[in-house]
Every structure is written in structure tokens, then in C-alpha cells.
């Protein structure tokens, strides 16, 4: 089972540094986590990165968001949480 790193902003820098070295990871950015600087993930370009669409929209980040971030709804978020082991940084 892959590890789902659930990441909010206060922990984003440390959490992304860990996720970048986990070869079996996916990342979900939640709440202010959608502001996170994704530079630590540059060395792991296969790692899937999702962002909660509502959190992206509320912050007006849609057009400025990095293209590697895939917006998801709450239904998909719930599916991901159920299907993976959650590593909580939120």
C-alpha cells in the first residue's frame, strides 16, 4: 500500500523532504498546504501530487498553481485516504 502524505502548510517543508525520498509515496496538499513550495519534490518527478480543489479555488491559486498538482474533490480525497496508508503532516 502506497503512503499518502497529507500535508498542510506549517509542516510542508519537512513533510515534502520526507516524501521526496519515499519511492512509494503520493502527496495531497490540503488547506494552506496548497501554497507549499514543491521544490523538494523536483528530484522525484514521478510522485503524484494532488491538491484539494476547494482549497485551491478559495485562495485564487488556480492559474498560478504548479502544473504538476492535480486538483481533486472531497470524494476523491476520501477514496485516496481509504485506499492508502496516511502519513499525517496536517
Amino acid at each position, binding site marked *: 500500500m502506497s*503512503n499518502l502524505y497529507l500535508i498542510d502548510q*506549517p509542516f510542508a517543508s519537512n513533510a515534502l*523532504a*520526507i516524501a521526496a525520498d*519515499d519511492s512509494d509515496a503520493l502527496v495531497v496538499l490540503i488547506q494552506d498546504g496548497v501554497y507549499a513550495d514543491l521544490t523538494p519534490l523536483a528530484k522525484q518527478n514521478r510522485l503524484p501530487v494532488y491538491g484539494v480543489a476547494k482549497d485551491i479555488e478559495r485562495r485564487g491559486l488556480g492559474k498560478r498553481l504548479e502544473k504538476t498538482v492535480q486538483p481533486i474533490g472531497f470524494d476523491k480525497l476520501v477514496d485516496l485516504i481509504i485506499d492508502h496508508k496516511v*502519513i*499525517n*503532516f*496536517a
Partner: protein
Amino acid sequence: MATKHVVFTFNHLPYGTVYYAEGLRAAVGVTSGIDEHTVDLVYLGDGVHFAVKDLDRTDSARYLATFAKQGVKLKVEKESLAARNISAADLADDTEIISHADAVDLIKRADLTIAF
């Protein structure tokens, strides 16, 4: 319920918020139930400032005393120390330096992770 291994990560500077003390309080709570869960305390990023030996630990002394009795050390990420120019000689006796790779491994293997 079965025994689980829980990794607590500490990510904040040690003063100005209650994260560092509340995290330790929660960690003591996790170890004190009938399931006897086990914990690792991992200090990452700015959290490593908590590990220096001259820090005033008044707020967290009782939690740390509990972990000392259990032989649990504070695991401090080497790369975070280096980035902040903190040497091994600066650290308190109840700390243990681990590599970034070790931190990743601990977090991957944990049954549960909780961030403070």
C-alpha cells in the same frame, strides 16, 4: 486493539507556540494506554532547535522524564542540524542523531504519524 508504533514529528521552533510541549504530552498519552503503544520522537527542520542542551525545558520536563525512564531518546535529523549550524556537542544527552534516510524509514514503517 493492538499495539501500534506511532511516530511523532516535531517541526516547530521550541518557543512561541505550544507545539513542542503538547506533542510530548500527546506522546506520553499514547504510551500510557492498556495497548502500550510505542513511539518514536523525531525532530525535523526547525524542530531540531529543541534538542540543544541549554534549552529551558521547564514546560516539558515531566514528559521528558517519563520518556527517559522508558529509554526513549529524542531522534534529531542530522541534515536539519547541519542546515542550522548545530553540532553534536551542542545537543542534550537524551538526544540521538539520525540521518534523513533513517527518518524517512521510521516514518514509512510507522503505523501512525502525528505532526506537531
